[in-house]
């Protein structure tokens, strides 16, 4: 296997919850992303998937901290020990990010051309004219018809889908090696979503980018990712190549999630609801964190399961997958 582009090892990110309690939102997460690979991270709200993304970019604000012992290696450098000045050169240039809310991430008083051009001014010291030309090119690449004219539009002139395209243009300006897309289409209509995911895939292959695609939507990872990481309660509970995950899911949470989602063309009498609620980060349960909601829980689940290796590229955090299960 080639050297990974990104290697996250034992990432732990902690916040202070109400009442001063410690909330370890990400608790011991390790994974890699290979060059040109798309890795999907799926999970429900509060599972730690977005905090993982923000940690990679070191965008965790105090009093949140990335704990000592966490490592994030990117292009053979440890991001967590870099001075902030060097981190700024990586953020937005080598690793770019697209968020869910294009309206709140764009400045309403600047034209989109100016905002996209700004990236080249900051990261490459480009002249105003050169940066503008590059911005128009980027807008064209992400699917703006008549990009030269549209570059003079303000964000409020654009639909949600076009605003998200403008955000993607900013993200790809410096030809990053890794694009982190956090729920990039969640706020959009389904037809717009399909177009934007298509654009992302086309850009990715033409620019030979890797992508970390974070979403709650299993359908999106099924269509867009090569490898999938399932997160629950701050931890990775399963990781597998995409086909294997959907054909032969191992972790009871993954299976329950797949059974809970209504699927087009597969109408069932009842959906298999998962009982109970997602636990909260300031009170992770002891032992297996899914135990209280799991139909297959047994006495061994009192002790926290490790991530068992169950195939070349398949891992599951469930005692049922222990190599010498009783």
């Amino acid at each position, binding site marked *: 296997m080639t050297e990974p582009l990104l290697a996250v090892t034992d990432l732990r990110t902690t916040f202070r919850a109400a009442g001063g309690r410690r909330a370890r939102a990400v608790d011991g997460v390790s994974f890699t992303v290979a060059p040109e690979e798309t890795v999907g991270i799926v999970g429900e709200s509060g599972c730690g998937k977005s905090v993982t993304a923000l940690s990679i970019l070191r965008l965790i604000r105090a009093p949140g901290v990335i704990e000592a012992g966490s490592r994030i290696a990117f292009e053979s450098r440890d991001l967590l020990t870099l001075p902030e000045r060097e981190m700024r050169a990586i953020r937005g240039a080598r690793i770019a990010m697209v968020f869910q809310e294009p309206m709140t991430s764009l400045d309403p008083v600047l034209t989109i051309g100016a905002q996209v051009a700004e990236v080249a001014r900051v990261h490459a010291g480009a002249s105003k004219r050169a940066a503008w030309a590059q911005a128009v090119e980027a807008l064209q690449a992400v699917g703006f018809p008549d990009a030269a004219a549209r570059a003079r539009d303000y964000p409020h002139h654009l639909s949600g889908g076009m605003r998200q395209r403008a955000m993607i243009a900013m993200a790809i300006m410096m030809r990053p090696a890794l694009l982190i897309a956090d729920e990039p289409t969640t706020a959009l209509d389904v037809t717009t979503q399909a177009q934007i995911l298509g654009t992302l895939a086309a850009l990715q292959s033409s620019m030979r980018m890797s992508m970390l695609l974070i979403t709650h939507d299993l359908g999106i990872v099924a269509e867009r990712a090569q490898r999938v990481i399932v997160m629950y309660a701050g931890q990775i509970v399963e990781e597998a190549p995409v086909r294997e995950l*959907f054909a032969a899911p191992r972790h009871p949470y993954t299976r*329950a999630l797949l059974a809970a989602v209504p699927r*087009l063309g597969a109408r069932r009498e*009842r959906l298999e609801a998962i009982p109970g609620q997602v636990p909260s980060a300031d009170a992770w349960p002891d032992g297996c964190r899914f135990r209280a909601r799991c139909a297959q829980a047994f006495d061994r689940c009192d002790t926290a399961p490790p991530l068992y290796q169950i195939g070349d590229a398949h891992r599951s955090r469930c005692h049922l997958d222990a190599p010498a299960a009783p």
Partner: protein
Amino acid sequence: MTVATPPAGPLLSVRALSKRFPPRRALFGETAPEVVAVDDVSLEIGPGETLGLVGESGSGKTTLGRCILRLLEPSAGAVTFAEQDLLALDAEPLRALRREMQLVFQDPFASLDPRMTVGAIVREGITIHRLAEGAAADARVARLLDEVGLPKEVAARYPHEFSGGQRQRIGIARALAVEPRFIVCDEPVSSLDVSVQAQVINLLRDLQRTRGLAYLFIAHDLSVVEHIAHRVAVMYRGRIVESAPTRDLFAAPQEPYTQQLLAAVPRMRA
């Protein structure tokens, strides 16, 4: 998939309903043109039946739902509920009829008064419509909470203490409190996590079966609608462009817009 055939004769009938929002003059700049949010829409819903209403944002589905409940005044058309002309009713008879038509909102966080206990929220409609009082009303609240899967102790607590799925259960209990026959469910599960979404969808189906409820189920998620609706209407730019029994619509969509919508849904192959 077995769905009991709903009895003949519609409970709700909407004829040629339109809703126009007049042109608005902005303080600066040009005048915003008139918006036709709902354009000549007709539909029917039978007792115990679910009509799924799908469409993208801005297609007019929420406005249509609100016009049917007369929370917005339609610009033209007719709405008949239980053989009464809803648009001709004065305030008092309208209020009486509203008891039978309820609304469940998308956002379980914004739609519950944070200063009221859960018990008071569920009890409010019972009091307003004078359905019960005192201990009888308390018992009724406890029964409703039980019916939506919440322990009766929650009556003394406040909405902020609950998760999204539990709040949506409270919203459903509030709607059920006045014994409606028809509920407009406006994106009732779209803000919920997948594992909890299934709980609420199953609950809505169980309630339909036990209480014979009719639903107008508004959603942008086609797979949720396929799961819950008997018939589906597709809305695009204020109009219903296609409407058919659920199985037919998903198996053989006729309109290009419906085909496009279905093709855009990401699929899981197993």
